[in-house]
């Protein structure tokens, strides 16, 4: 088993917590893991990207080779496109459709979504709306993680356990909101693949 995942978004959007949840689940399953993070200047509202590699074999490089990523999980649509050169031909793109518009020349969102449609294997999900519908606005990143779940090949139970472990300190309500967000995201992805 091997999954090479690119996580992308804008500094401050919380790709780190997605990485932490998958990472915790992978460790619980006894898998190897390498995860590179972005610190420093680009954290200030710039584009950020993280390489997450999990495998039952030894992992050599901290960086995923270009064109070899199994998954791109993006919390922002333009940032999903930025990293397409990383995606393997049979890889999946899982992305939020909600733009984070902090630049003057952000392209028309229709153009961005049209480019996402061109990727043969993709899930485009309005995670913010779903999070709002279930009254868990701050869990839109976990909705996206949920949508990526069918492609992770990790036992869904271990992802739920990881959420309980990581959010446990913040109280039962936060845990339940995130579990709900995960479920909604997953069921969206499963329906779109049918």
């Amino acid at each position: 088993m091997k999954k090479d995942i690119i996580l992308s978004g804008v500094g401050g959007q919380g790709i780190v917590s997605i990485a932490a949840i998958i990472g915790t689940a992978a460790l619980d399953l006894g898998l190897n893991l390498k995860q590179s993070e972005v610190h420093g200047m680009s954290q200030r509202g710039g584009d950020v990207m993280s390489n997450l590699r999990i495998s039952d074999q030894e992992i050599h490089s901290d960086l995923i080779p270009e064109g070899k990523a199994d998954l791109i999980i993006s919390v922002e649509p333009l940032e999903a496109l930025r990293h397409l050169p990383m995606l393997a031909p049979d890889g999946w793109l899982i992305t939020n459709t909600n733009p984070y518009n902090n630049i003057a020349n952000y392209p028309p969102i229709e153009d961005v979504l049209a480019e996402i449609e061109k990727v043969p294997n993709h899930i485009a999900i309005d995670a913010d709306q779903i999070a709002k519908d279930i009254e868990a606005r701050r869990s839109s990143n976990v909705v996206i993680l949920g949508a990526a779940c069918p492609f992770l090949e990790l036992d869904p139970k271990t992802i739920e356990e990881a959420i309980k472990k990581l959010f446990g300190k913040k109280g039962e309500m936060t845990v339940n909101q995130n579990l709900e967000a995960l479920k909604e995201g997953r069921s969206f992805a499963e329906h779109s693949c049918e």
Partner: protein
Amino acid sequence: MQKLLLLGDEAIAQGALDAGISGIYAYPGTPSTEITEYVQHSKEAKEKGIKSSWSTNEKTAMESALGMSYAGKRTMVCMKHVGLNVAADAFVNSAITGANGGIIVVAADDPSMHSSQNEQDSRFYGKFAQIPILEPNNQQEAYDMVQYGFDLSEKYKIPVLMRLTTRLAHSRAGVVRMATQHPQNELKLPDNLKQFILLPSIARKSYKALLANQVNFEEESNISTFNKYYEGKDKSLGIISSGIAFNYLHENYQETGVPYPVLKINQYPIPRKYVEKLYAECDEILVLEEGYPIIEESIRGYMNNGKKIRGRMDGSIEFDGELNPNKVAGALGLPVSQGRAKPEVVVGRPPVLCSGCPHIDSYKALNQALEEYAKGRVFSDIGCYTLGALAPFDAINSCVDMGASITMAKGAADAGLIPAVAVIGDGTFTHSGITGLIDCIVDKSNVVIIILDNDTTAMTGGQRSASEGGKLEDICRGVGVAEEHIRILRPLPKFHDENFRVMKEELEYEGVSVIIPRRECVVTVNQRMRDKFKEKKK
């Protein structure tokens, strides 16, 4: 055995705790910051009384460490690559004084300049100072090397340089901790109380001793478990890897294993014994190293009249930028994998000042105050406010090194560029700006110095600033800035007109003015509020 999930930086910090350090000294700088922060947040370190507060700059950090070593204790100094430039005087001389308690100097390099102004390779500093260098290629090795490095440092009474690069510093993996920890050293002065006096008559002897030790350092490299020779059947090529390049090499032979002989060099001086074997055995050599071609250049030699040596110098790999698995594949003549092209619709998203950032208000007032003058007179510095170089502000004209804003403004004013303005942050000012301000006072320079005081070292994540709690005006008064030309502002939209007026007045004053727009960083304010909320919940 305990397995921890650690960043490369954190692995080094845990290694230092387990190797019995009594203090860690550092100035924050990406990608090195998390080493010291890990020690600061460690309960264990607190219980053991390990010193870990931030130093004012890398030079004071290096010197404090040297003092701790003098007293017989183990200590670590951490900085980013350009920080080693600041510490260089103390660093290079520490090779001559040698150590008493073990010292490891950690320099975290940033090839590809993710968060830096150049991509200099710290291994050159190690070679220049003629001390051993360690360069881990994964998190486990980063942890293991620290214990080894301290033993090596104490065996030869010499500081050891540990070099890593961004990708290892900021990547997490599992690390197995040693079963037993080294206790802290007892207080013990050097056997020779003149060891640290670099009077020429003593320094000459000490330098001879350092030179005599070179052969021992090389022998340590030859027998080190961090340097390894891997046999290979196909001798048409021999590969030398250093540091993290080893991972990219193996990434490209995941299924088959590397068919060529490989020499992994993670400890310097270069282990000559192995290089000679590889050179004799193989038709040509490919050197894979992160950073400048230091090994490649050494083996090639100036005359370049031996076997074919490939690497960054002959263009097999481009000279600048960090390595990655694809670049290494190209150098090995393997197929280079590619994904889909980046769609044309994708535009850049550079970092920006946070919404509500006080620097925004300071730059707005400054830009308006400078409207009546020709453009190109604002010298700035290293910090979040360097983003003032980008739209919509386009407010600054320089960013060179820590503290250069003040002294460049002085030089430009001396040349006749009046008014000349310096924009510097509070952390950078105490790091290296004060001496420049003294130059301006002594020389009665015609400069306007704006110290953006957000009460923190913001760019690296909000570390304590040395001038915390509003000490800047006292410092300025103390070095001789006239009271009436120290102006404190509140950078908020509602005070824009007043701030603009004050800046305009000081631009017209002939002499040294210091303007201090003061408001806490929005990131640290938010963090403080969150912590307070959590505290209440408890």
